[in-house]
């Protein structure tokens, strides 16, 4: 006996009483059998003690209620660091032609419906897509890959639209994580039945909240306003002015929405964006703008001079206008792109600029955000970049212009609309 049966105090040999509690050791029978308490619960506790063999069974559905992807060891060695498959030349484990037989979630291409067993063709949950980045994982409901986490391209990352004589292209660019530009193009019949075309291009202000929603709301509101007022016979220049006011109101409303509290940054600015619009109606070319998005005039006869039709609401433009700096100095300054006018609840005072032109020859109007004109600032540069057949292929021209911005670095979202002047007669547009 090494310890007192009453209080567990260590004993010395020869002790007849416990030194701590005075227990009579001579009367001690065998140790009480409640001592092995410790081991009694081992049965119950066993699973918890051996977690390394008690694998949890794989769930059918993961936390986002889509089928949990399953990996086989053979899936792993044949992928590069981005998770995509290596070309067979650098594989050591053989080309995985048997991939179709593996658990199925990462199978590419899809199993042949004629030969695959029925269970391989189980309908995936609605909206299940494969990731464009790793081409291995499914895309979850939030728009991220369940494998590599990459955000999937969103609808607005690249948008193209062609409507008879007018076309527009918008692209996220190469450095921004979302496209905060938006455009709207439309054609409206004037009261006398002659066609007119309209385009609106907006650039969300990144330093404000929800710039993408602001640009979308502004472009839609302005285009809807024009579609309503032009057929009624409102003078196009007045219609453009009213459309800008309507767009400003639409952006202001965003600031009041409960959604404004969605982002945990109450100190951030109210949603805001720039706007530039153009209307081609009969012999008139109307432009209207707020902010630093621009419209350019490029005659079909490239020997005639091209021109910029808008005057930026920007720090640089104001410096030049005030004669304090020349253009080169002003645009070299880091404040050059700080805008002094915009649509949004934080704008000091809305000053819609409109201008009316009567071009004496055919040409195209290029309506764009600074994501493009940063790479073709002068009107002559714009005229050089745009294809010669722009008036007949406006969509192609818009694509070429966006491509020019992306080739230059694509530092911002790029949006371009191309409108031919005059409006080509019905049916004579690009085919």
């Amino acid at each position, binding site marked *: 006996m090494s310890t007192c049966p*009453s*209080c*567990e*105090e260590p004993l010395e040999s020869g002790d007849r009483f416990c030194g*701590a*509690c005075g227990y009579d050791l001579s009367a001690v029978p065998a140790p*009480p059998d*409640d*001592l092995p*308490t*410790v081991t*009694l*619960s*081992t049965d*119950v*506790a066993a699973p*918890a*003690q051996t*977690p390394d063999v008690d694998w*949890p*069974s*794989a*769930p*059918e*559905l*993961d*936390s*986002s*209620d889509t089928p*949990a*992807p*399953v*990996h086989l060891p053979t899936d792993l060695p044949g992928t590069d*660091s981005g*998770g995509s498959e290596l070309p067979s030349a650098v594989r050591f484990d053989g080309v995985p032609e048997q991939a179709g037989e593996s658990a199925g979630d990462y199978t590419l291409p899809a199993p042949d419906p004629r030969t695959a067993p029925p269970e391989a063709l189980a309908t995936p949950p609605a909206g299940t897509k494969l990731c464009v980045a*790793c081409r291995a*994982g499914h895309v*979850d409901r*939030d728009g*991220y*890959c*369940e*494998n*590599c*986490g*990459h*955000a999937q391209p969103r609808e607005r990352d690249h948008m193209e639209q062609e409507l008879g004589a007018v076309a527009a292209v918008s692209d*996220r*660019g*190469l*450095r*921004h*994580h*979302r496209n905060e530009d938006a455009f709207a193009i439309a054609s409206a019949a004037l009261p006398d039945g002659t066609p007119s075309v309209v385009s609106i291009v907006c650039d969300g202000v*990144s330093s404000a909240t929800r710039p993408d929603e602001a640009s979308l709301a502004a472009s839609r509101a302005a285009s809807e306003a024009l579609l309503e007022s032009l057929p009624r016979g409102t003078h196009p220049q007045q219609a453009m002015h009213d459309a800008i006011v309507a767009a400003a109101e639409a952006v202001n409303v965003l600031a009041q929405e409960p959604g404004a509290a969605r982002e*945990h940054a109450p100190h951030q600015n109210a949603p805001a964006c720039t706007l530039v619009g153009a209307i081609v109606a009969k012999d008139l070319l109307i432009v209207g703008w707020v902010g630093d998005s621009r419209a350019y005039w490029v005659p079909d006869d490239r020997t005639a001079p091209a021109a910029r039709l808008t005057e930026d609401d920007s720090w640089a433009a104001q410096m030049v206008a005030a004669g304090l700096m020349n253009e080169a100095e002003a645009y070299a300054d880091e404040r050059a792109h700080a805008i002094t006018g915009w649509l949004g609840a934080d704008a000091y005072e809305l000053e819609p600029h409109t201008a009316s032109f009567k071009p004496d020859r055919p040409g195209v109007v290029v309506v764009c955000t600074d994501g493009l004109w940063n790479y073709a600032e002068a009107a002559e540069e714009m005229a050089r970049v745009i294809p010669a057949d722009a008036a007949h292929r406006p969509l192609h021209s818009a694509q070429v212009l966006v491509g020019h911005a992306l080739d230059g670095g694509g*530092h911002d979202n790029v949006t371009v609309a191309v409108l031919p002047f005059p409006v080509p007669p019905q049916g004579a547009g690009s085919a």
Partner: protein
Amino acid sequence: MAKFSKSSVPQFSVDVYQNEFLPEGGREVNAIVTVTSTGGGTVGGAVAAPQFYAAGRGADAAVALMVDCSGSMDYPPTKMRNARDATAAAIDALRDGVHFAVIGGTHVAKEVFPGGGRLAVADAQTRDQAKQALRKLSAGGGTAIGTWLRLADRLLSAADVPASSVRHGILLTDGRNEHESPEDLKAALDACAGRFTCDARGVGTDWEVKEVTGIASAMLGTADIVADPAGLAADFTRMMETAMGKEVADVALRLWTPLGSEIKFVKQVAPTVEELTDRRVEVGPRAGDYPTGSWGDESRDYHVCVQVPNAELGQEMLAGRVSLVIPGADGSAQTLAQGLVRAVWTDDMTASTSINPQVAHYTGQAELAQVIQQGLDARKAGDADGATAKLGRAVQLAAASGNADTAKLLSKVVDVVDAAEGTVRLKAKVAEADEMTLETRSTKTVRVKK
């Protein structure tokens, strides 16, 4: 009775606070995840007006009270008497219908009430019987806390309540765990962790802080010191009220991270700092569960730090999906709420260099808990310079973050010369209770000032 209309199933919500913007080549994503559960709470309601809660009303629960009955509880004799009174107060706070048992702990564990390997169902009669049984408690014997926990586990797991019920223990000790090896205690904790939650209290100043906080940490409960035995009854009542407010047991924080990422750490940062990184249980591809125990009406904050694979400027990646789940026995899981931690690469230096205020705050609170521990360890080891430096930093952090409670506890251990600079002098004479209080409560944090 506004609480009467509350649903008994709590609603969970998850809010994520982070700066998602990373510079070119940046890989580390930090986020504070605030989890709030509302709608469960019967805290107060059941206690203030138990007559409105018929038997079985509220969540099913089983509770085991473990009271130290070792010989030292008789020095002074008021200690045992206060422990008895406190246990009686806790029994009074039991909601009708809750299954409960009282365990007397020495070097062995004995069932004090109701006995026979069963639990009693709380009502007026059984509460009375339990309090009668408490009178028979007397001090004598050693201390082997592992045996108490194992007995509590056996009783709680045999309780006639649904598997999803809250199972909770309350453990009171006044001395060191001398009559079993630390390995025995560790084995008992490993066996019991996740099977029930347990609050631990040390009464007097003869117990080991790391033992008691270690038990509470492993069992996902709270730890505290009750230096004056007279304060036990109030503390026990509070603990039992909190336990009665728990509505959902075994909730896990599930973290999904993308392929090629590395989880730097996951820790609870409010109301206390609790390291969870090593407690991950894999549950599927790139997902793991961290235990959070049971929840009532409450809010907790977690700090998640993930290192994601690099991506190009303009790319956006989901760096983590944080969800609160109740894992089922069959591997399925019920998702209660979820939040997204994002990473967005940008060349906008203003965006990528700013630190989220919540992340900054809790990074400071975690450091505060750490430097207090290091400072007290250095002090015990006789390293006065090290202790002064660490505790000075602690004073500075506590002052800057507005952690007034911790600042007050620190001021009993050091003389503060300049709180802003962190200049302090060690006090020559420190009451043992003050030092133990500081050590026990060093992990308590405050939330960001709004």
